[in-house]
């Protein structure tokens, strides 16, 4: 599904290298997790994959089903099936949540050569999916993320994911700022979307989200590289011992 | 008063104590000293006389005369929201100096003891072993903790400058401007009038013609000035205008923090103070300029007081140059003053923090201009205006983003507080944005002193007037924090004093 090879990235404005050769392959239908200390480059990886400005790719490639992502505009990546659940979802005053969802969905359908969804059909689908995420009608009517609580924002991200039905989902620190109940709700939403044709890349600092979204593969990222890869047990190891030992084994120290 | 009193964030015990110690205008006494005046009125002869008194070179006289001719052609400005009684420019003494200053003292030891005593009484010891300048509460601080060099200006002349030798060791020149014109003509010629041109405005042009003294600072490349510098202005003589001129130059990579304080005796007739301050900041240099302006504000019926018409401007010429203006304006019958920043270099920074308090019949029209010319330049304006009695208080400012000032930023916050229903608070910002990569944000609010906060204070036994002072101090907190420590203490007590009689 997703194949990242030797990805090197620096900040556009500064001479600061963030990713120093990331190699990662996520197979179709699998859930991979990336864990790592702060400043390891996890969030940068998610932004670079989804095409945010401000980063310069100096080497490497990222293929989504064999197509080079890095050459596409952000909306083309979305149409190709990539979805990033933001760590900090953006507030857009004046644009209704429904309008936003419909615009996005129809833009993607159009880009894929599909017919646009009628207002009636759309409404039916969105109400159904919102219900399972406990998103009420009022939240759907309100402007995008404006006045939403932390938990509501993250649920709204998952609702978008459910509506847009991407192939490759990246969750960037989706657990940050959530209490246990909110996290369970979000995790249930994600788990409901797991299927044989869809892959996930779950980026997180802590293991706790992985209790709810069970990964197939866990990677540890540090200093702009994947330094270790293993099964779910690797996450538990981090949970128990922290990052220090793993970092030390690779000649690194934890950035403060 | 309970020791755990917490009024609101930003008001601490220190404030409470300061407020409790407040008194009325403390600086209203007069020094009896024999003075020498130039004849009243303004003419070419007076300009020549001032130049001659200062023993100036020919080029300086020519410069003054050019300004004088220009001034005669200029109309008085009337755009500010001020009601300025007609000023008779022929009924003012343009030059007044203590007789004892006829021959300039070679050192502080030679200065007339009466003058030294005057500054002592103001809390400005002109002795180098007593280190702190200009400040209430200075005596509480540990001696030797901090050194401040002082240039003391009495009516039209500088009576002395402390720590000159120590500063000279670091290469810093700090002296009166009259001395600088004689001793460092190359520097004065290079910079004088380059930030505030002769033709800038009515009062600045007047100043060019008749300025009698003021301070001069030059900090050479790479030098961090080893102590804070300050000038203390005292108007003493009656019917006398004070026209001082300050020129500060921070060469590449230099740093200096400069403090300014002002007082005048209580008098029934208004007096004019028209100063010019020019600051040149080269590449990577930084200047902080702090003012506590406490000229006599006039009495509770609006009689007397200083007309404070001042032009202050800093030019951030080099890349990464920084300037920070902080002002606490509590005095003067009328204040007309807009310390400004020209952000010419790339990545330059200008900041303006202001508290303006007007009570009784005081009027203030003050603010700043942020002229963004260089790319990535940043500016920040925080203005707190407080009106009480029958006073009128206006914030007037300009933020200008030129087409070439790409990626620049401005943030402006103007808050006004009204105490009583006879006063006025006004906000007149001008915003001009000529490129789209810059971002300008302006916010302003006007409100009255919060009743809940007042009630809370009073329920804890704080008197109404003190409670108001407490709350106002909290309102001003952001600006007070920008001041050097000793100045902040003086400013806090001034806030309280200025608002005396504003409630009840």
């Amino acid at each position: 599904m997703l194949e990242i090879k030797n990805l090197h990235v620096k900040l556009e404005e500064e001479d600061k290298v963030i990713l120093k050769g990331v190699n990662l392959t996520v197979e179709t239908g699998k859930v991979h997790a990336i864990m790592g200390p702060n400043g390891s480059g996890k969030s940068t990886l998610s932004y670079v994959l989804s095409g945010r400005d401000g980063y310069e790719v100096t080497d490497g490639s990222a293929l989504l089903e064999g197509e080079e992502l890095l050459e596409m505009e952000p909306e083309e990546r979305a149409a190709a099936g990539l979805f990033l659940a933001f760590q900090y979802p953006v507030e857009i005053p004046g644009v209704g949540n429904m309008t936003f969802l419909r615009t996005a969905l129809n833009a993607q359908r159009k880009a894929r050569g599909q017919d646009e969804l009628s207002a009636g059909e759309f409404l039916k689908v969105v109400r159904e999916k919102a219900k399972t995420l406990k998103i009420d009608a009022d939240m759907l009517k309100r402007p995008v993320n404006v006045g939403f609580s932390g938990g509501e924002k993250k649920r709204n991200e998952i609702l978008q994911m459910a509506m847009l039905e991407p192939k490759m989902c990246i969750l960037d620190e989706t657990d940050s700022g959530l209490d246990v109940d909110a996290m369970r709700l979000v995790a249930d939403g994600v788990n409901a979307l797991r299927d044989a044709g869809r892959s996930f890349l779950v980026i997180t600092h802590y293991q706790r989200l992985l209790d709810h979204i069970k990964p197939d593969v866990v990677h540890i990222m540090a200093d702009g590289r994947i330094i270790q890869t293993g099964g779910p047990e690797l996450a538990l190891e981090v949970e128990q011992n922290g990052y220090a030992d793993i970092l030390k084994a690779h000649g690194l120290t934890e950035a403060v | 008063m309970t020791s755990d009193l917490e009024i609101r964030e930003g008001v601490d015990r220190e404030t409470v104590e300061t407020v409790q110690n407040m008194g009325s205008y403390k600086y209203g006494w007069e020094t009896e000293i024999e003075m020498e005046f130039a004849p009243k009125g303004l003419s070419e002869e007076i300009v020549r006389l001032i130049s001659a008194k200062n023993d100036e070179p020919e080029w300086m006289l020519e410069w003054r005369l050019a300004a004088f001719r220009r001034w005669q052609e200029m109309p008085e400005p009337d755009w500010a929201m001020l009601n300025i009684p007609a000023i008779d420019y022929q009924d003012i003494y343009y030059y007044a100096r203590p007789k004892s200053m006829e021959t300039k003292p070679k050192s502080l030891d030679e200065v007339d003891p009466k003058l030294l005593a005057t500054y002592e009484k103001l809390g400005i010891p002109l002795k180098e072993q007593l280190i702190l300048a200009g400040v209430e509460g200075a005596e509480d601080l540990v001696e030797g903790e901090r050194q401040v060099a002082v240039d003391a200006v009495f009516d039209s002349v500088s009576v002395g400058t402390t720590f000159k030798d120590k500063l000279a060791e670091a290469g810093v020149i700090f002296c009166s401007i009259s001395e600088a014109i004689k001793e460092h003509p190359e520097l004065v010629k290079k910079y004088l009038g380059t930030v505030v041109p002769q033709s800038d405005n009515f009062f600045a042009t007047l100043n060019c013609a008749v300025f009698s003294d003021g301070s001069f600072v030059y900090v050479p490349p790479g030098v961090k000035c080893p102590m804070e510098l300050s000038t203390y202005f005292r108007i003493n003589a009656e019917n006398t205008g004070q026209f001082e001129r300050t020129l500060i130059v921070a060469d590449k990579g230099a740093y200096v923090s400069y403090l300014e304080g002002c007082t005048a005796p209580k008098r029934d007739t208004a007096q004019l103070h028209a100063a010019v301050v020019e600051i040149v900041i080269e590449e990577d240099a930084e200047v902080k300029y702090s003012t506590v302006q406490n000229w006599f504000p006039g009495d509770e019926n609006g009689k007397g007081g200083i007309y404070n018409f001042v032009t202050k401007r800093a030019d951030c010429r080099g890349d990464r140059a920084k300037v920070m203006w902080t002002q606490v304006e509590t005095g003067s019958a009328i204040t007309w003053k807009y310390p400004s920043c020209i952000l010419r270099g790339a990545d330059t920074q200008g900041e303006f923090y202001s508290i303006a308090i007007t009570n009784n019949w005081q009027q203030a029209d003050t603010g700043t201009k942020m002229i963004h010319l260089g790319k990535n330049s940043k500016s920040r304006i925080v203005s707190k205006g407080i009106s009480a009695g029958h006073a009128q208080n206006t914030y007037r400012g300009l933020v200008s983003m030129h087409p070439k000032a790409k990626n620049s930023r401005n943030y402006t916050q103007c808050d006004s507080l009204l105490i009583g229903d006879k006063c006025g608070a006004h906000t007149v910002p001008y915003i001009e944005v000529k490129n789209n990569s810059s971002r300008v944000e302006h916010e302003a609010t006007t409100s009255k002193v919060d009743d809940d906060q007042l009630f809370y204070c009073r329920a804890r036994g704080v008197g109404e007037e003190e409670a108001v002072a407490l709350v106002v101090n909290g309102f001003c907190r952001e600006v007070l924090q920008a001041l050097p420590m000793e100045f902040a203490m003086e400013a806090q007590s001034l806030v309280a004093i200025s608002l005396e009689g504003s409630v009840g």
Partner: protein
Amino acid sequence: MGAAVQKSTLEARLEGLSTTGFAPAARKDALARLVAMGLPGRRDEYWRWTNPADFIAATPVPAQAFDDSDEAPVFEATDRVKLVFVDGVFDADASDDLALAGVEITRLAEAPDLNWASGLYGTLEVAGQTPVARPLAALNTAAATDGLLIRATAKAEKPINLIYIHRSEVSDPILHHVIRLEEGAELTILENGPAGARFNKVMEVDVAKGARFHHVRVQGRDHERRAATAIFARVAEEALFKSFTLTVNGVLTRNECVIDMVGDDAVAHVAGAALGDGASDAFLHDDTVFVTHGAERGESRQVFKKVLKHGAVGTFQGKILVKPGAQKTDGYQISQSLLLDDDSQFLAKPELEIYADDVKCSHGSTTGAIDETALFYLRSRGVPMEEARGLLVLSFLADAIDEIEDEGLRDDIVGRLEAWLNRHRD
């Protein structure tokens, strides 16, 4: 100067204008006012950013009639009384019948005398001349050739739509409407259409106790328009005044709005959304607003948003004046501009002048480009660049559009905005 005295600018401007007609005494006073204050000039503080030269010139710059038939007429979805002016002259044939339940409508040019209106004509304009002179409005009162006198005595059955049609390349209409809402009445006025090559319009609105006045205006699409309009409103106790203007295109537009809140508990909202694209012609849009709180517990809102590109210039001069004694005033003002490229400019002077202490007044002003983070967020959800920019423009304008209370009218305006954005994609 020789004996052959050159005509002054004012004399030249007045040449060919008639200062007789409805309310002759008021016209005479207005002319005297105008002579005393003179025409506006570049050096006037109140014309700091807008050059009034084209407004004061003896003759208008010719402007071609603009064909906007590719779009359905605005307000078409609303049941309304249509009153049509062609090049500033009322066209009875093109208009609906003047009869409307709850409202009396009279044509100014045909009214020999109408008590309520001749007493009102020019009075709100005079009041609005202090503290700032508004010579173009005085000129209007003195020389208006037509307009409507509208008096609502109850809740109007439907909105009145003033439609301005521009045919002659050199038309230079001066229209003056007088609107009076009696106690408890309700009326909505809609305005649209290019009125002429140069347009000078004054609308005096007197809102009596408890009455509700709504105004929605579309100034649109004719690139070559030069228009100076002024609304003078007096809002009595518990009365409501709401005005919204959408402006798209136009070489030079100056919209003044002067609101005097004279009664306690009055509400006045004035809002504007302007879209300017300097590519087809120059674009300068100037909103100049002056709200005076003269009574207690008044609520005022000024919400002005501008979207500018290709050298378009937007200016805003807005003031909240709270008079002594106008306690418990709640005054708010926001002026914002979105600069879509580096050539455009926004110039603003948001003012507060406050003489009462128990008030809550604030203003804000921001200028900047489209928020890159929000743009990325939209694009990451698959919304193409241009569409995403369009959505963010609408998002930016939302606060102003929300000031339109009627949902149908609001949707109509949003539709116009979307159409404009589609036509003006880069």
